[in-house]
């Protein structure tokens, strides 16, 4: 083990199974006597159910059962889908498993069919007779708060779910009153649909004798699902539920949340005493997976006569959809308002967020969750202000960056940034893209009627939410630590049980790299277990770019504990004082006498045989860690997008994309770059293509991949990546999250680039997605 594994770009051990089709996803699993579930969904955004007759469906050959809300109620289970984040004075409507009397969004579950096969289950859906009395609906959050708008919940007047603020309003108003210049912007942060490659699925098996439920499901956090299933949905004791995440094909947040569907499937298994499986169709995921973003925002920035930012004021209507999804209230508040300082020294910030119920699919965390929205607001305002002041946007940023000597830096919006050096990635990115030269080319091109734009996004992200006490004080009904057990077997092979739950990221590779380096055992001798509540002690799962920083740190801490226990045993075996025993590359040796050594494998065997252990040392060689970080981590960086806009058709061509990110130490560059690539693609997707659109009646009119445009590989240039390394000062690995950075940075960079390209036309803003027609209209409109 001469080579350090940390930092090396080894290939992902996950991939051979994934690319040869051997990986087993939930829908690949089959149990004897298994039946299939299909769920009837409301075609109306808002309606009263006046009649619901399942008799014809029940009579169909091959149908096992048809259930409605009444059946769920009769079974006596709690039957709730709870919210996991509380804000002061928020209205909390109950969310049922199946709609009772009233439906509140298109796609809300109304009834469930269990049948011997999938085709029959879907045939039976068509035989369920439902009469709806359609009611008027509202989909747009800014309209939903207007007087007289149709109410989603009778006890939430004006559809206001919560009214939240952060920062000092008075001081901020004062800053604006004293400002030399101000800019303001009205923007819509477009609603997105997550689009994990694997749609959600669940297979539930209930054993009436033992009272145990086993639930295989598409989850990013099996323990959270077990907890919520137990407490709120099913009422089964927690130890009688086993949740397993088999191979999970992506999530982007959509598989964090606790939905009615998996609970319905579990309940059906409990009712019938036979295994049942549900696999969502793509159209179903479009209607039911929690959507992302959907803000209507007014934002303003103030500067003094020297061009220093003095104030930021933001008002946002955040669409919650018809009910709270699991962590929905946190996303537009603590993951958004707190990020509005960006990379800048802004003495006064005030942000008010009104959470709004609408007759739409619930909205929750989607890759970046609040932080892309915040970055978009800040980075758009920064560009607007630079233009107003006649300054180069890079210069304006530089002037307002928090200088490196001010860390730890306390923002006026709660966060304390632990470290940062923002000019470094900015300089590197500008150099990579050839900024000066590009600006000259832009000038030249304009003379020929060609419109090139350069867009910057100098972003900050806060991830690895922590510590638990702080998160709890903000309203989380969850902890945000992570667990790990590192178990060295008698033969020196290692199994690691991690509370993180990977679903495409490559945890099994990076985690094994961490353990290999700390224990000095071969990488191939390490197995990583995750995603099973019976195997893994506890875990909060994978989201919010927390797996390396929190989950990886937990592993590092427990591996180090193993080393320390091993040292005691080794000292005993070497007949040396513990302090005199060094550990390096898997060998314990007496300091100064490296040939007097025992390997960690030798120590492991002795630890299990326990024939000759030092006094007070328990047998076996393993250690657990429940690691609660002392702070968030704060990755940062600079992204630069270069576009060319066709002024005639409005088509936008993304020519280049440069990203310089700082995620601290890098465990595996290949995986980090993969995350950055995917993240940028999603950010570009939001900027140029993706938009979940509802009509006035609350119908999702981008209900399929034929209408909802995800970015295709051919839409994207080859990304140019680099990085700087500012280690996280407070975790053992010095790592920060990188799962969301690309998404957080990219949409602002791309829109800034388009607006920059159109500067000669006087265009100041275009809402995302920046489609060709919007560009064309902006050019037409700006002329007047």
């Amino acid at each position, binding site marked *: 083990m001469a080579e350090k594994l940390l930092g090396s770009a080894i290939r992902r051990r996950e991939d051979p199974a994934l690319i040869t089709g051997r990986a087993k996803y939930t829908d690949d699993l089959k149990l004897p006597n298994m039946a299939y579930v299909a769920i009837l969904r409301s075609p109306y955004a808002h309606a009263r159910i006046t009649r619901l007759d399942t008799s014809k469906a029940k009579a169909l050959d091959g149908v096992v059962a048809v259930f409605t809300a009444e059946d769920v109620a009769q079974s006596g289970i709690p039957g709730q889908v709870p919210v996991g984040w509380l804000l002061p004075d928020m209205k909390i409507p109950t969310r049922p498993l199946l709609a009772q009397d009233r439906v509140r969004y298109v796609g809300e579950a109304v009834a469930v069919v269990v049948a011997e096969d999938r*085709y029959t289950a879907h*045939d039976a859906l068509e035989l369920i007779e439902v009469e709806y009395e359609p009611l008027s609906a509202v989909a747009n959050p800014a309209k939903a708060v207007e007087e007289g708008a149709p109410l989603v919940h009778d006890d939430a007047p004006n559809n206001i779910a919560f009214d939240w603020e952060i920062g000092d309003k008075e001081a901020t108003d004062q800053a604006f009153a004293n400002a030399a210049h101000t800019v303001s912007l009205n923007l819509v942060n477009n609603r997105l649909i997550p689009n994990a490659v694997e749609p959600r699925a669940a297979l539930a098996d209930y054993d009436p004798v033992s009272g145990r439920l086993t639930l295989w499901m598409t989850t990013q956090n099996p323990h959270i699902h077990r907890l919520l299933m137990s407490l709120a949905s099913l009422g089964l004791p927690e130890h009688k539920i086993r949740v397993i995440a088999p191979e999970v094909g992506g999530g982007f947040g959509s598989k964090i949340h606790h939905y009615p569907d998996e609970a319905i499937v579990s309940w059906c298994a409990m009712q019938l005493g036979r295994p049942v499986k549900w696999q969502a169709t793509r159209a179903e995921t479009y209607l039911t997976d929690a959507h992302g973003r959907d803000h209507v925002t007014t934002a303003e920035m103030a500067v003094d006569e020297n061009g220093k930012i003095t104030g930021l004021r933001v008002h946002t209507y955040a669409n919650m959809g018809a009910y709270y999804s699991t962590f929905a209230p946190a996303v537009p508040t603590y993951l958004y308002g707190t990020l509005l300082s960006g990379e800048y020294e802004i003495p006064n910030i005030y942000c008010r967020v009104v959470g709004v119920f609408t007759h739409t699919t619930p909205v929750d965390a989607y890759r970046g969750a609040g932080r892309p929205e915040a970055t978009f607001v800040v980075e758009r305002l920064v560009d607007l202000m630079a233009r107003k002041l006649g300054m180069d946007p890079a210069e304006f940023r530089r002037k307002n960056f928090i200088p490196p000597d001010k860390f730890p830096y306390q923002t006026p919006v709660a966060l304390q940034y632990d470290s940062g050096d923002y000019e470094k990635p900015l300089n590197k990115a500008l150099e990579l893209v050839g900024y000066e030269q590009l600006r000259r080319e832009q000038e030249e091109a304009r003379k020929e009627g060609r419109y090139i734009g350069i867009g910057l996004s100098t972003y900050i992200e806060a991830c690895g939410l922590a510590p638990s006490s702080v998160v709890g004080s903000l309203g989380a009904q969850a902890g945000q630590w992570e667990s790990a057990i590192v178990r060295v077997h008698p033969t020196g092979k290692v199994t690691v049980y991690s509370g993180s739950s990977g679903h495409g990221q490559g945890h099994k590779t990076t985690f094994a790299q961490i353990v290999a380096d700390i224990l000095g055992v071969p990488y191939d001798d390490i197995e990583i277990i995750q995603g099973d509540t019976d195997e893994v002690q506890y875990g909060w799962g994978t989201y919010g770019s927390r797996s390396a920083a929190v989950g990886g740190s937990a592993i590092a801490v427990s591996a180090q504990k193993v080393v320390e226990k091993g040292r005691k045993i080794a000292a005993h075996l070497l007949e040396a004082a513990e302090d005199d025993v060094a550990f390096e590359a898997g060998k314990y040796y007496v300091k100064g006498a490296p040939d007097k050594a025992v390997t960690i494998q030798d120590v492991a065997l002795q630890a299990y045989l326990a024939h000759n252990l030092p006094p007070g040392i328990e047998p076996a060689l393993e250690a657990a860690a429940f690691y609660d970080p002392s702070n968030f981590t704060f990755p940062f960086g600079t992204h630069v997008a270069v576009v060319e806009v066709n002024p005639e058709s409005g088509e936008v061509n993304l020519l280049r994309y440069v990203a310089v990110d700082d995620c601290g130490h890098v465990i595996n560059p290949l995986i980090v770059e993969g995350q950055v690539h995917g993240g940028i693609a999603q950010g570009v997707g939001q900027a140029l*293509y993706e*938009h979940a659109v509802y009509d006035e009646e609350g119908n999702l*009119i981008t209900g399929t*991949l034929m*209408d909802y445009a995800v970015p295709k590989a051919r839409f994207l240039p080859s990304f140019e990546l680099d990085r700087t390394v500012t280690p996280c000062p407070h975790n053992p690995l010095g790592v920060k999250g990188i799962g969301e950075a690309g998404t957080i940075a990219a949409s602002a960079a791309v829109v800034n680039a388009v607006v920059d390209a159109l500067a000669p036309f006087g265009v100041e803003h275009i809402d995302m997605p920046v489609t*060709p027609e919007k560009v064309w209209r902006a050019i037409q409109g700006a002329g007047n």
Partner: protein
Amino acid sequence: MYPPKFDYYRATSVDEALSLLQQHGDNAKLLAGGHSLIPLMKTRLAQPAVLIDIGRIDALKGIQVDGDTLRIGPLTTHADIAASEDVQGRAAALADAAGVVGDVQVRNRGTIGGNLAHADPASDLPAAVLALGGEIEVRGPNGSRTVAADDFFQGLFTTALGGDEIITAIRIPAGGGKRVSAYVKFPHPASGYAVVGVAAVLELDGQTITSARVAANGAFECAKRLTGAEQALAGATASDEAIAAAAQRAAEGFNADDFMSDIFASSEYRAHLLGVYTRRALQKALERA
């Protein structure tokens, strides 16, 4: 994603397919590449009780040069059309169009016959076949007839094809003097279908455009000729000015509500794009002169 039950027949000849069609009437649908029909069945928007698979009738496949005519079997895939040197050489607009249909999988399965019969307004092949002055050969219980492409496309998903008829060939005139053609499209970023697609076919005598046929799909409920542009071109000298003049007249004769409109592209924007893409199609065609 789960169609209701249906019966499946595999026809081995056109005659057999015709008699199956006769037998099952309106309940039956022909199945070629399945790339339009099966998605509709999976979403239960189409629920045929009987599928008659014609996909393995070899007589309906392939491309032949028949004197002055290019004869294309309806089961010829988009990929085969795009790759055919005969099509590239004699009817470049059709090769262009077939080459930009969907993605590789779609081009390997989808067929020209299915594409024309389905008559999706946003399909790529109709404009090319129309601009090239193609003819659709169909066979029904009463024998064969030939329908000019000009008469074939009648509206949204509507053609001159009878429910009991099968397309047996697509014929493209490919003789005469010097002819250049091209097809360009603005693909929808989600579906890949044409938001606007324009095919242009020019007959040239030296630098003079003796006649022009220009057609568009995506813009309207079905593929349509752009007669304003055609008139502007006829007799003109091939030049940027002539192209610009034709592009300017692309939307001539159409009303605002003739244009399709959706959340991605309004009718006004489509009308604008029609001019832009007419110009691009003409430029591309003339580059081939």
